[in-house]
């Protein structure tokens, strides 16, 4: 009987109003301070209460229990000068876990401290925008400040905030990186540019966007093809067109698999076979941003001309493939020696395979 509890609470508000004015507003964010006063302020209505609901009896009883537990403060509870007396007692239990108010307590005190630390951190670490003009300054400033969060013993493998350095980008940075990746075949310096601040935001959300966009456009292609076929065959068709939800699953496998698994494989190969020190985040970063050109291409590929779709997919695959190969050329050839060329070719072949899979599965119009 929540409602009755509420009503009881509100019915008691005239009694409580002096308390509330002095204490409730003063210490409102500090729930534990408020708590004893609240429970004792709670007591008066119940003995005199005409509330007939049995659910309130344990309710009242428990608050009585609380009131009796804090009788010393309850006796002087109506006087405002008790409030400072209560406040210091709170500061001790504040550090330890509180009672049922833990949730409120947690949200009031803990989260802002996260936010503060996060904001300080993000404003301290130089933006990626600054990498080009002042790379020496970045080398001096960014790496130590990024590692400063790392060396904090609080930041463990399972602490979410220890991964913030992989999401240390602004909107502008992500857009610039996407642009760089599209024209990356002409200017293959993406690897160097992202060495200090490889982000995983771009790879994850570019892949997720592609999962959605290819599912949408693939279904749209099948819809258009359905209409072409059936408009030609008979005027009115009984069988309706249905979208294919499986396309979402397959495209998720294709894109997350391509970025995640192949990136991981390449990184593992570089690290343990060739003893390179390239970071996994950077491999994923390059693989993820390499896919960004497919987002606009997916929309273009709904045109019902087979030759245009082939050409678009081919251009996108060549551009992003070159972006990948040219950016990984240095890291692979530096460490792999004679085995570098086969590995490098393998990456290119896999990328061509991705382009073919996109063309042949997602943008394949049904036979017309």
């Amino acid at each position: 009987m929540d409602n009755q509890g509420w009503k009881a609470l509100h019915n008691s508000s005239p009694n409580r109003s002096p308390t509330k004015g002095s204490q409730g507003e003063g210490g409102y964010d500090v729930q534990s301070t408020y708590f004893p006063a609240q429970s004792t302020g709670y007591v008066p209505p119940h003995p005199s209460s005409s509330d007939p609901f049995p659910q309130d009896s344990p309710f009242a009883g428990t608050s009585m229990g609380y009131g009796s537990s804090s009788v010393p403060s309850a006796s002087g509870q109506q006087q405002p000068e008790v409030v400072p007396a209560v406040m210091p007692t709170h500061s001790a239990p504040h550090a330890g876990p509180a009672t049922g108010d833990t949730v409120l307590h947690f949200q009031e005190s803990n989260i802002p401290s996260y936010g503060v630390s996060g904001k300080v951190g993000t404003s301290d670490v130089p933006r990626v925008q600054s990498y080009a003009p002042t790379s020496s300054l970045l080398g001096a400033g960014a790496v130590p400040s990024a590692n400063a969060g790392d060396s904090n013993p609080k930041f463990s493998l399972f602490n979410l905030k220890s991964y913030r350095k992989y999401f240390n980008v602004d909107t502008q940075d992500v857009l610039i990186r996407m642009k760089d990746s599209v024209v990356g075949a002409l200017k293959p310096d993406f690897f160097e540019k992202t060495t200090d601040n490889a982000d995983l935001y771009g790879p994850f959300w570019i892949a997720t966007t592609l999962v959605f966009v290819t599912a949408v456009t693939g279904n749209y292609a099948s819809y258009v093809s359905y209409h072409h076929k059936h408009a030609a065959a008979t005027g009115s068709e009984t069988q309706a067109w249905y979208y294919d939800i499986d396309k979402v699953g397959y495209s998720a496998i294709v894109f997350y698999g391509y970025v995640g698994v192949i990136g991981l494989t390449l990184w593992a190969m570089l690290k343990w076979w060739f003893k390179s020190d390239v970071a996994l985040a950077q491999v994923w970063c390059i693989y993820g941003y390499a896919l960004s050109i497919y987002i606009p291409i997916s929309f273009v590929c709904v045109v019902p001309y087979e030759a245009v779709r082939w050409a678009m997919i081919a251009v996108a695959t060549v551009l992003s493939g070159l972006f990948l190969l040219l950016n990984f050329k240095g890291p692979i050839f530096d460490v792999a020696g004679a085995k570098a060329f086969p590995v490098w070719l393998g990456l290119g072949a896999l990328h061509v395979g991705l382009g073919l899979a996109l063309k042949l599965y997602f943008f394949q119009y049904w036979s017309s």
Partner: protein
Amino acid sequence: MAGMKPASGSAFSEDVERLFQHEGPPVASASTLPTYAPPPANSDFSSGGGGGSGMGNAPLNTLDEPIWETVKRDLHRIGGNLILVVFPFKNRDQQSAALRNWDLWGPMTFTLVLAICLSIGSPKPSAVFSFVFGTCAAGAVVLTVNVVLLGGNIGFFQSMCLLGYCLFPMDVAAIVTALTTNMIARWIVVLVGLAWASWASVPFIGGSVSPARRALAVYPLLLLYVAMGWLALIKG
């Protein structure tokens, strides 16, 4: 819960009244806590009770109440939070006030409704259902983690709660598109639902990160809602 304003509330200013109204339930819960865990006599509470129970206004002594009372209380809470979260017409502070009292029943309900409505009439209803339910549930987690990783200042379950409640306009859109096959009507309903869901949720999510990253935090949210709107639009 707008219907529960105290009769004496007119004595207070509206702010105080609202504050009291939303802050009340957690305190009430705390005062009922001794039913389960009697605290020590002094105020040095060392028990870590209340972990994860954001459902602050639920009285804990519910063992002997009829099931209908339990369901009704949850429905009341879902309705109250829905109004506060999804319809923040007056001011947005009511959202954060309501989210301090978060629950996950509402998000689960709205996700289930959305999944059921979108899977009706599909040739593969179970695949659609599992896709929608999984995407909304995992999406809420991923979106929240995304905001945290971008340096945002956000409460995990508050964000989950808000994202779940903001599916409500998409629920309405999905119900309407399940009833009509008129594409114009579907487009209108889906676009209105999208706009409403974004209007209710984007300021909360976007406001929790620094302005330079607002688009990064908001974009995945819009992607999720657009994906659901797309499914509602093209359902058979």
